[in-house]
């Protein structure tokens, strides 16, 4: 006779929310990478600002010089859309945890609509900056900030669309419910980063 102690794990689930799931961790590490990227980008913005006596640099007109501050319209609209999009995303997030398929579906549709609208508005937002990327260092760094954030908006919206298609056409299984919760984290992060960039791009030049 041989005896051997065992730990029986055959009753354990395959997927569970938040810290349980490796995918949640993987997503958060990706966001940590991107957070340090945006952190260094913001440092670059302020570093370049030191080279300018006026920021953004003034433009000489026929009669007087113009201070070409970035116009608030499109940027503010994007901010409102992203913040509004958090509401269906929170509902979807909660619904995924409870296993409420219908609410997840409706929430994702609204969130995706907000995401798509934000992408389109971001396309126009570049025109709110007086300079092009190749005008001067101010134009380069602001376009780069808007562009990197737009890249995240695109990836986020695509991910949300894919998950939406999945839960409409395939199973609403635990694996994809965990994915919904993970995409929600990404959504909150994209919104939070944007609030920071919005304040920096639009309001720090207005402070003086």
């Amino acid at each position: 006779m041989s005896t051997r102690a065992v730990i029986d794990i055959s009753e354990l689930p395959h997927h569970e929310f938040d810290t349980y799931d490796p995918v949640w961790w993987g997503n958060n590490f990706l966001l940590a990478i991107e957070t340090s990227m945006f952190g260094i980008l913001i440092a670059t913005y302020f570093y370049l600002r030191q080279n300018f006596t006026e920021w953004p640099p003034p433009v000489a007109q026929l009669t007087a010089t113009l201070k070409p501050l970035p116009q608030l319209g499109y940027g503010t609209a994007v901010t409102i859309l992203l913040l509004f999009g958090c509401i269906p995303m929170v509902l979807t997030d909660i619904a995924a945890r409870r296993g409420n398929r219908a609410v997840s579906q409706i929430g994702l549709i609204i969130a995706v609509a907000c995401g798509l609208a934000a992408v389109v508005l971001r396309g126009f937002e570049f025109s709110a900056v007086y300079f092009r990327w190749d005008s001067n260092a101010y134009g380069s760094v602001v376009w780069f900030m808007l562009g990197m954030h737009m890249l995240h908006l695109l990836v986020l919206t695509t991910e949300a669309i894919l998950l939406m298609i999945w839960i409409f056409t395939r199973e609403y299984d635990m694996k994809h419910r965990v994915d919904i919760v993970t995409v929600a984290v990404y959504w909150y992060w994209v919104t939070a980063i944007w609030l920071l960039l919005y304040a920096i791009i639009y309001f720090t030049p207005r402070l003086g």
Partner: protein
Amino acid sequence: MSHKEAQKRTEERVAPRSRQVTRMELEENELAAAMEREREELERTWARPSGLRGWFTDTDHKRIAMRYIKTAFVFFVLGGIEAALMRIQLARPENHFLSPDQYNQIFTVHGSTMMFLFAVPIMTAMGIYLVPLMVGARDVAFPRLNLFGYFVYLTGGLLLYTGFILNTGPDAGWFAYVPLSGPAFSPGKRVDIWAQMITFTEISSLVGAIVIIGTAFKMRAPGMSLNRLPLFVWAQVVTAFMIIFAMPAVMLASSFLASDRLIDTHFFNPAEGGDAILYQHLFWFFGHPEVYIIFIPALGFISPIIVTFARRKIFGYVAMVLSLTSTAFIGFGLWVHHMFATPIPQMGESFFTAASMMIAIPSGVQIFCWIATLWGSKLNIKTPLLFVLGFFAIFILGGMTGVMLASVPLDLQIHDTFFVVAHLHYVLIGGSVFPLFGAFYYWFPKWTGRMLSESAGRLNFWLMFIGFNLVFFPMHQLGLHGMPRRVYTYLPETGWGTLNLIASIGAFVLAGGVLVFIINAAWALRAGAVAGANPWAADSLEWSIASPPPNYNFHNIPVVQGRYPIWEATADAPVVRGLSTTKRETLVTSVMDAQPELRFDIPGPSIWPSLVAVAVAVTFIVGIFTPWAFLVGAILAGITLICWFFADPNYENKTARETGERSQRVSPRPELQPKEV
């Protein structure tokens, strides 16, 4: 449901089973037969696709890591050949073996190869191979991401060498400072190739970092709480965190540089408000942590080698872990000491001098802990330990010159001289390459099932040790005499000829050592002594399984009872039961205490990661020539990623998946049901 409720629910499901250790009593032959059946099923489930298909679809971490190691070693040899060419050129004054332009390309490609294509990838690869085995997992946390990372890395290497062969190798130094590398002073595509090579290798290291942290945090065997994590894994985790925070800086630096060159942005153009010093800040905010990204994994090789050959537990485990983490933190506060020759405020210089000297403290703590471990023990001096002892000698010398260079006045005197070349090779070759060769000798039996020759190993070590000191020790002297770096020749009146000739002779002795290793490895693969599972009588989990390990790594996930799982295992050590044998599953445990949480579905082989890597390759290589590549590339990457998302995560088990979550539960085979005590 709130997070707390979910947690509670899972705890209820987990607790009664995982904490209750039951005993099963079985007839031995019945058990053996059942185990054999399970083993056959596992072999089928974890079978690797072979041939060409296997190249592009296999997600096995051991196979991917071996490819990384072999590829990186080929780049190491290429970088070594470039070094030898430079040494031939410098062997005597006014030599015309290489033209100035060839010399510029060769030192740039040598540095870029050694840093980006050899050192970082091979250190990550050691982690990708060994971390899952040391923590008792069946694969890494994200096997498909891992496959993607390898192909992106390979693309970067091939891009650099294609350019080099076509006489379009980068020529602005391995850090490509602006304005030299900017559009005004480096027309053509040479620097663009460098910038995109950076993009590829950084994507691959970031991916590798996520794979390693995910595995170390979530895939540990029950009982391996964080305070029992092997020091090798600690070193890999600390390195991975450094990669996460350091690599974005160089990605931004190289993207800004590429866009300045391609679409006329002005990040580094002073005429339009840009800033050349900004580039140096961005580069070295990555570049200094990079040194530790190469060095800390090597510290992780040293501890297990010392523990095994001193035959005793490590002295000061907690101090070792704290030293690793504090090295990582301080490593981010040093970058400006590469820029002492630029207009930095004196206050700033003092801060960075202090930090540069402070980092000697944690390194010192570790070295004393190792010495304390070795002290008075019965040393079993085999080749791996020999390389570690060589590390002590060389690295401590390199550390000494590091403390010297941290001082601003001295640094200004010897900035850009061969003294710096000597210093960086003492810390990088001494700190990383020597432990790495020790690690090759130590883990080669695990990888291949065969032992490397000991006598050839000793020859290898002594050739490398003597050769290394012959090449680089005279460079200290040359630097103090004022010989500048990156200059293709010198005049006879300078009197630098003799020392340079000694260094060049040393280079060939060093190369001879590497050649002995290659021959030794080729011989051992055919005729080396058969190793068995644990040839060194070592302590960590990778030695508890066959050499080379089976595809599924562990038949039964072990339960860890101490920091030295094999040495401290009791005869009746429990094992984990209940993972499926017919689909790819591994155990996921909690981050701190390694309590069982999930039977996680590990994705199996897939073609999509390779195709996403192709999309990334097209984007950035064509992106050297036209910005439209990014639009086309985004669409290609989008399509391939969508297919990756919709592809079956585990195509061996489609039926199991389609039947829904609850019915997937796989009970232990009836005859193995544990009996209650």
